[in-house]
């Protein structure tokens, strides 16, 4: 299993895309921190990028990579190895390379210029976001054999989590305006990894005072170590759950 992961990693590093991605993140991170005198503001601008770019790149790159190495996977499947091992090592390879890119690209400037608890939360949530979108990409890739369809599905997933979901939340808020929605909001956040990551970071930046009663409920939850642990746990769930389902599908699939 480790061997396959290693080959996948070499393969990815060779094709230079991940290098470009790392450089892009590095340049963005550096420039944000040097534009803004206040590191907290730099962190906020970086957050916007992370919430948009990281999921998009992770999901698209992983899907394309999966389809491109389809023949390799077929070849491996002919060997005396469990399909699960092949699939998971493929996942490990892609996830490792992308999260390394993220950790270098965003982690270095953030730790160098920002520091503090909020930057750590930012790095961690971005890291988990990368992992979860890679695993969503694998789910999208095993559902259909057609490459175009797979990429389309991956785009739809990204679109849903980054844009549509928040719109839905907004419309729910509009229609159930008269009810106390604070607890429901907490639940709704948990159902979207990008929202969860965003709120985890915002809560560490003392923005909750702006948020009125909802903010108070959120602050109560996220400011405690317990709440933070729960949030991280849920984000991990967003990593584990899609890849488990994908693995199940892959094992039963007629390649």
């Amino acid at each position, binding site marked *: 299993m480790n061997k396959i992961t290693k080959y996948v990693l070499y393969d990815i590093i060779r094709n230079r895309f991940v290098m470009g991605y790392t450089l892009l993140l590095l340049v963005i991170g550096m420039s944000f921190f040097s534009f803004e005198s206040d590191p907290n503001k730099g962190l906020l601008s970086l957050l916007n990028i992370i919430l948009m770019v990281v999921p998009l790149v992770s999901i698209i790159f992983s899907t394309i990579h999966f389809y491109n190495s389809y023949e390799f996977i077929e070849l491996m499947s002919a060997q005396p190895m469990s399909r699960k091992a092949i699939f998971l090592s493929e996942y490990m390879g892609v996830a490792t390379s992308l999260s390394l890119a993220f950790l270098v690209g965003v982690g270095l400037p953030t730790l160098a210029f920002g520091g503090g608890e909020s930057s750590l939360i930012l790095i961690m949530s971005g890291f988990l976001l990368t992992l979860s979108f890679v695993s969503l990409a694998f789910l999208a890739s095993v559902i259909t054999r057609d490459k175009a369809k797979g990429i389309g599905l991956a785009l739809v997933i990204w679109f849903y989590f980054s844009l549509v979901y928040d*719109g839905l939340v*907004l419309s729910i*808020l509009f229609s159930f305006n008269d009810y106390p929605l604070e607890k429901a*909001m907490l639940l709704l*956040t948990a159902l979207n990894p*990008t929202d969860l990551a*965003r709120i985890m970071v915002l809560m560490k930046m*003392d923005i909750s005072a702006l948020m*009125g009663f909802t903010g108070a409920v959120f602050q109560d939850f996220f400011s405690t170590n317990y709440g933070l642990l729960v949030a991280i746990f849920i984000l991990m769930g967003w990593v584990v759950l899609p890849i488990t389902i994908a693995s199940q599908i892959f094992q039963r699939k007629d390649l």
Partner: protein
Amino acid sequence: MKMTIKYKTRIGEIRHRFIRVNPCLICVNLCAIVFALALNLQAKMWKVTPTQNLKQVIIQANAHDTLLIQKGLYRTENIIIDKPLTLIGQHYPVLDIQFKNEIFTVKSSDVIIKGIEFRNVGMTSMIDWAAIKVLEASNVRIVNNRIRNCYFGIYLSASDHCLVQGNDIEGNPKEEQNTGNGIHAWKCDSILIQRNHTQGHRDGIYFEFVTNSTIQHNDSQGNIRYGLHFMFSHNNGYFYNHFHRNGAGVAVMYTKFVTMKHNVFEQNWGGAAYGLLLKDISDSHIEHNIFKTNTVGVYMEGCSRSVFTKNQFIENGYALRVQANCDDNSLTYSNFCGNTFDVATNGEVVLNHVSHNYWDKYEGYDLNRDGIGDVPFRPVSLYATVIERIPQAMMLLRSFTVSLLDRIEKIIPTLTPEGMKDEKPLLKPLKL
């Protein structure tokens, strides 16, 4: 020989001149001596040491006497000052009342209290005990005192023409209901409060029915409730004060003709904190102030005919929250930089005049290069309007959806109030 003659004549000249002036000088000297003697006869100088009973000395002293209170610890009881005395502390003598009562109750005009440290005034719910309480007096001067751990600091009641200057007042805050105000004035007129420092009280400076007064160069921070709080206090001026890190910022209510200039309101951050809360304020001038990192920079409710100009709003949650019941106010020549929301309002109707401000979120152009943008700026974003209706929507803060919606709204405004716009936004920040 020649030299000595010359010398003599010069001396003669000088002597002559002196003699000519002399009668006049003598007259002045005599007058001064007589006056001083008269004063000396009337006003005695008392030296008080910690071994003496301060209260007894004050009872014995005659009007216009001066008491020099020597350095040391005086465990006193409540002292009523009912004649014009000058009390001067030397190297901050400490008056400690051990939470039993209030320390000075001034019932006479022309009292001067200077350079004394007051400690440990007890908490009551019936009477407001204070370190220095002034009752129905005028021309009382309270200068350069230190007040520590007292329920109320300086309490002026129905007094006028008083001076409160250079006092350093620090409380030991526990809860809002168990702490008094640093400087409290009720029904006063023409008082001057300047260069004081208040910290750790309920309200740093509190006024009710105070008129024609000036409050300047004070520093009010870390109070449990408000840094400055006044009601029904017309025609007062507030200049160069600094209000920061107060529990709920500054709140002023039910007042007309307020002038606030060159004040700084900052770091009032919390669920219900405001840099400056204006409720039912009319005909006022708010100029050259700085509002920085507050949850809400200025919150206006029921304000009319007030002028807001040359203020700076920096890094607030909301720079301005204007309720729709405000009318005829003008907001001009101000800088808005780095605020999460520039303006929020709760209604469709806007009856205020906004122009010539600098907004860092403005994205318009200036074809004729006169420094004024050619497209009006709408400071109320769609998202701010949504939050005003549904506060829970704050959950979507800084999400992509929200910025997208805001952008669409900027192009085709539908939900945000039509009237709330700056027709002449400035392209460059004003130097204030």
